[in-house]
C-alpha cells in the first residue's frame, strides 16, 4: 500500500508540475476570439461599443447611407437629426406621436412617412409619403436592439445626450433572420426577403425610389431583367419616381443573396407581370 501511495503521489506531483509550468511558466496568450459573424452580445457591451455597433449598422447592414449621404441627395443627411428632431415634431406636417428625439428617430425608422423632410417625399405626394422602407422589415430587417444602436449612434453624432438604454437580453427577432436566409418558395416571399420593395413597387410592396416593376414584363425581356438583377448598372432606366435614375443606386450584391432557382423564379415573375 505504501508503494502504491508513493507511486500515485509521484505521478500526481509530475502532473502538477507540468500543469503548473504550462499555466505559469510560459506566457499565457489568449488566442483571438473567432471573427464576429454579426452576433450581438449586448450583455457585456459598454455604451461606446453600442454606439460603435450603431455606426456599423448605419454604414453597413442598415444600408442607410445608400440614401442618407451628402452626395446623392436622395434623403436628408442625418448628422444633426437628434438635435433638430424637436423642430420637426413641432412642424405642422408632422403626423407622428413622438415626444422625445429618441422616439422621433425610432418612429422615423419604423414609419418613415410620419414626417417627410420637405423635398424628399415620393414624387407627386407633396411630401406626405416617404420613399424610405420600414427598417424593421424586408432585407434590412433590423431588430429592436439594432434600431436602438442606430439611434444611439445618431444621437452621439448630433452631439446630444444619448438617451437610449442598451437593451438587456437577446435580440428579439432571431427567427426572422433565419427565415430570411431560407430559400424562398414564392415570388412574394423572395421579394420580401430581398427587400425589393424598399425601392420598387413590386409584388404588393410599394417602394418609391426605383422604377415601378408591376408591369415591367410588358416592356422588358427576360434577359434584360435577369441582367438588371445581376448587374444593376448594365442598363439604367430613364425615369425613377424621385427623378432620373442614377447608376450605383441599386446594390450589386443581389447575385450573392439568392440561389439560381430563386433568380429564375424572380425573373419569370417579372416577365409575367404585365
Amino acid at each position, binding site marked *: 500500500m505504501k508503494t502504491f501511495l508513493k507511486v500515485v503521489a509521484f505521478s500526481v506531483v509530475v502532473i502538477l508540475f507540468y500543469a503548473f509550468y504550462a499555466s505559469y511558466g510560459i506566457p499565457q*496568450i489568449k488566442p483571438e476570439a473567432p471573427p464576429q459573424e454579426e452576433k450581438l452580445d449586448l450583455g457585456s457591451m459598454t455604451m461606446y461599443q453600442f454606439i460603435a455597433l450603431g455606426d456599423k449598422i448605419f454604414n453597413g447592414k442598415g444600408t442607410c447611407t445608400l440614401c442618407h449621404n451628402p452626395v446623392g441627395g436622395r434623403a436628408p443627411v442625418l448628422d444633426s437629426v437628434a438635435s433638430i428632431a424637436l423642430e420637426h415634431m413641432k412642424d405642422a406636417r408632422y403626423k407622428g406621436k413622438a415626444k422625445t428625439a429618441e422616439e422621433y428617430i425610432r418612429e422615423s425608422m419604423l414609419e418613415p412617412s410620419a414626417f417627410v423632410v420637405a423635398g424628399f417625399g415620393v414624387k407627386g405626394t407633396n411630401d406626405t409619403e416617404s420613399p424610405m422602407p420600414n427598417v424593421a422589415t424586408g432585407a434590412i430587417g433590423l431588430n429592436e436592439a439594432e434600431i436602438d444602436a442606430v439611434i444611439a449612434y445618431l444621437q452621439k453624432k448630433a452631439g446630444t445626450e444619448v438617451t437610449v438604454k442598451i437593451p438587456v437580453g437577446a435580440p428579439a427577432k432571431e427567427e426572422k433572420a433565419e427565415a430570411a436566409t431560407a430559400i424562398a418558395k414564392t415570388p412574394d416571399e423572395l421579394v420580401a426577403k430581398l427587400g425589393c420593395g424598399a425601392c420598387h413597387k413590386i409584388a404588393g410592396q410599394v417602394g418609391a425610389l426605383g422604377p415601378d416593376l408591376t408591369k415591367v414584363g410588358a416592356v422588358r425581356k427576360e434577359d434584360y431583367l435577369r441582367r438588371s438583377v445581376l448587374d444593376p448598372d448594365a442598363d439604367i432606366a430613364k425615369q425613377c419616381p424621385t427623378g432620373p435614375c442614377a447608376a450605383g443606386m441599386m446594390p450589386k450584391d443581389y447575385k450573392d443573396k439568392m440561389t439560381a432557382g430563386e433568380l429564375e423564379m424572380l425573373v419569370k415573375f417579372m416577365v409575367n407581370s404585365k
Partner: protein
Amino acid sequence: MKISRLLLAVILIGIFYGFFKIFFGVVLKQPIPSSLLTMYMFFVVVGILLVLSFTEEGARELMSPIKNLLENPEKKMMRMVVFVIVSVLAGYITYNQIKPSFEAPLELRTIHPAPPSNFSAFNKTYNLLTLENPFRKYAKEDPEKFKTLVYEGGEVYFKNCFYCHGDKLDGQGHYAQGFNPLPANFMDVGTIAQLQESYLFWRIATGGPGLPKEAAPWISSMPVWQNFITEEEIWKVILFLYDYTGYVPRSWEKH
C-alpha cells in the same frame, strides 16, 4: 582531498550558473532573460543530480550529509540553525513576491502572429496564400530593371521606414527607443528571413491595427501604410528589405 558529492553538486551548479551569468551577461553582453535562466538552471540541476545518483553508492553518498543532518542526534543545534535559515529564506521570498512593486507587468505578444487567409487593403481583397510580389520575377527576367526597383524601394524605405527600423535595418532607428515594442530588426534571422513576401505585404499594408489580438495591435506603432504609400511602393520596399539584408524570402515551393 575528496569532496563530498553534495558539495560537488553545489559547486557544479554554481559553475553552470556562473557560466550563464558571466559568459552571456558580461562577455557577450547579451544577458539571458531570467525566465529562461530559471528553466536552464532547473534542468542543469536535474541533470547533475541524475549523473551523481545513477549508481547505488553514488546516491547514498549524495544523500548522506542530508541524512546525517536530519538524523544525527549530535547535530541537533546545527539542524535547527539550518531549518531556521531555510524558513526565513522561504518567508523572504514570499515577501518579495507579494509586496506591492512598481515592476511593470510583463506584456507578451506574439511577434509573428498567424496571418489571416484574406485581408483587404487598397480597397481590394488579397489572398495571402497565393499573393506574390509582382516584381520578384524581374530578378531573373530583367536584372537591370530589378536593380532600379530595389533602389526605388530603398527610396521608399528612407522616406518612411527608417526613422524606426533604422539606417542599418536593425530596428534601431532614430525614434526606436521611444517605442514599445521596439521596431523589428530585419537583420535578425528570426524576422523577415523566416517570412514570405505576402506576409510582409500584409504587415506593411495594414500596420499595427491590422494585427490579430495575440500580437497586441494596440501597442504596435507600425502605421497603416496603405494610407500613405501605394501598393507598388510596398512591393518595392519589400524587394529592398531582402536585397539589403541579403536574405531570401521564404517560399513553400519545393526546391
